[in-house]
């Protein structure tokens, strides 16, 4: 095993002397996270989590479902997750959003509850500032979540009504009564990945993940470089098995990936005010995410014939996964197909894991992201190693 260690150490020494790793692993993500945090997240708001202010205008006053919406929003406010102000009409709400009094608003049109009971078209209007796409996405996400809950409650209610022979009015009344104990619908405060992460932490996590992909292919690139410079042939002529050389290269990838994220997290804690909670569990998430990213990058870059080509492949993968994985802007607030697609990236699961973890709860709350990331890593790394074996020749 010592020979593996010496190979990793030699490669690390070369990487450190090359300095590129510091640019991609530390300087670039710090710069990007700082810029994004400054633009969207309240730069240096380090002590408290960001609380979005929402306005609500309910033109369906007295409607059981619109009331449920208002109650659910008020509950979120009482938990300190959001701020709420109520507005008498739509123009007043629009003005509040326009003038920045609130970050976004929800307008419930007249007849909203009735429309839901009748099964006709009903929607909560999200009023947002187009220059604040993140908050707009968050508000849309909350409205979508509410709509889903209502749809689910309506289906259940309709079934009950048919079974009990209720009239629509009786059904609504029954719903209202029940809602006092157990509201028929709830409003999700934010989507999982942004629910509890404040701005600096969200953008730091995104930048760390985005740039980590640029450095995590170092093992495969180093193998291709060794082949190009004939040092691989020299290694193969020594009493070290090809499997050990390959193992060293993949260990190098994981080491560099984890190292760069860890270093970045440390710097972002002090420079950007990012809050990384439960370090051991966060570390597990980082290792699993780095493993998955290393596997995916190696899998794609493994098709390359030269180290230059592999670097290009790596960049394409990094940018595509970064955007798709919602490292800079939450995807889930937008198109649902994209939201589903984003789950194919380790980025989305990493961000989700961090989001879940920041609300507390320990290992249990990040079990799903952790398992998914570990499976991604296991599958992609296995295929990558098998593919890389054909590189083990002069």
């Amino acid at each position, binding site marked *: 095993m*010592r*020979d593996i260690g*010496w*190979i990793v150490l*030699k490669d690390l*020494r*070369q990487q450190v*002397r*090359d300095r590129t790793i510091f640019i991609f692993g530390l300087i670039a993500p710090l710069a990007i996270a700082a810029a994004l945090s400054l633009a969207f997240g309240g730069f240096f708001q380090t002590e408290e989590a960001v609380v979005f202010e929402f306005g609500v205008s309910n033109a369906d006053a007295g409607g059981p479902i619109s009331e449920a919406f208002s109650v659910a929003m008020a509950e979120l406010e009482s938990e300190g997750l959001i701020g709420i102000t109520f507005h008498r009409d739509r123009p007043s709400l629009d003005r509040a959003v326009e003038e920045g009094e609130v970050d976004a608003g929800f307008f419930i049109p007249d007849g909203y509850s009735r429309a839901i009971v009748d099964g006709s078209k009903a929607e909560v209007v999200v009023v947002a500032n187009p220059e604040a796409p993140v908050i707009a996405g968050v508000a849309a996400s909350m409205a979508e979540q509410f709509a889903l809950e209502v749809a689910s409650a309506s289906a259940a209610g309709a079934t009950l009504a048919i079974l009990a022979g209720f009239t629509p009015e009786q059904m609504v009344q029954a719903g209202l009564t029940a809602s006092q104990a157990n509201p028929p619908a709830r409003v999700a405060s934010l989507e999982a990945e942004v629910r509890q992460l404040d701005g600096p932490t969200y953008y730091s996590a995104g930048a760390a993940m985005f740039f980590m992909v640029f450095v995590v292919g170092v093992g495969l690139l180093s193998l291709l470089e060794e082949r190009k*410079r*004939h*040092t691989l*042939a*020299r*290694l*193969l*002529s*020594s*009493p*070290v*098995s*090809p499997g050990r050389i390959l193992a060293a290269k993949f260990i190098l990838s994981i080491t560099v990936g984890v190292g760069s994220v860890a270093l970045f997290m440390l710097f972002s804690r002090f420079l950007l005010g990012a809050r990384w909670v439960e370090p051991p569990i966060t570390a597990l998430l980082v290792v699993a995410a780095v493993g998955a990213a290393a596997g995916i990058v190696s899998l794609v870059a493994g098709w390359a014939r030269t180290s230059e080509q592999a670097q290009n492949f790596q960049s394409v993968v990094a940018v595509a996964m970064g955007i798709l994985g919602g490292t800079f802007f939450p995807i889930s607030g937008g198109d649902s197909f994209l939201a589903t697609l984003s789950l194919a990236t380790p980025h989305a699961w990493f961000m989700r894991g961090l989001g879940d973890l920041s609300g507390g709860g320990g290992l249990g709350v990040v079990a799903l992201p952790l398992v998914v990331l570990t499976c991604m890593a296991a599958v992609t790394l296995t295929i990558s190693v098998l593919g890389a074996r054909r590189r083990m*020749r*002069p």
Partner: protein
Amino acid sequence: MNTPVTAPAPDASPSVLQVEDLQKSYGEIHAVKGVSFEIAPGENYGLLGPNGAGKTTTIQMIAGVLAADGGRVTVCGKELTTTTTSVKSHIGWVPQEVALYDRLSARENLAFFGRMQGLSGKELANRVEEVLHLTALADRAGDKTIKFSGGMRRRLNIGIGLLHQPDLLILDEPTVGVDVQSRASILDQVAEMTRQGMAVLYTTHYIEEVERLCHRVGIIDHGTMIAEGTRAELVKMVGERDQVLITADGNLSEGTDRISELDGVHQAGITNEGMELLVDDATPLLPRVFETLTRSGVAASGVRVEEPDLEAVFLHLTGRALRD
């Protein structure tokens, strides 16, 4: 003519290297077709052949970095494959290309490859210093190799192969692209290794290096060993013939074709400088040779008549000259 090797005769003890019927193909191309030879301790064996003859492929299979399709390689009595790692510690391989880490210093390169060969602690530190002195790089030991000249890099490249004091040193064209001074130094080092009892397999397409260093020579062409023996044995194959080296320019292809048809001319081949002929007796033949050259549009600027050397042997065996 170069001075033949003056090293003591090879040891009569069992072979350090035994190569039997080695074969390798790349798709349709049969690169090595059943090459066999042996090297004794303290023997310097030259593998001579033009570019593309199969020398490097043969060497890579012997070094254990390339899997053979057929045949067997035995080093110090143990069979070698690409996966039998322990046997490889008996071999020091110096690849044709300089194989160094640019961002590491000479000392770091040596230490790393020494560790890969299983050296450690004081033994490693001592060997690194010895090799640095042997390669005359002690005063630049801490410099990154990217700052080294071509000759210095070549010397370090060889030094890495010597680090673990192997029983068999394989040198694949170690002097390609090297300045005259470094080349002389490299050849001296190799001769010294042989004197110390190391078996050396030396490939080159430079005749003078083989004649200076090697006890025995194998001539390889198109993946086949076409002749093997001491220099004297090989030259004897040519017989009592003269080797005529002509410095010339022009339509050399037509010139050699026409000269080949002259009585008394056995072989004619094109070289870097002009052409090379193998003839019965050069003196009466030369006027007709020059006349033919003139008629063929070849301008000759010089001529040398020499006793046959290994170049003449290759010409005699293949009908072609060894060319760069």
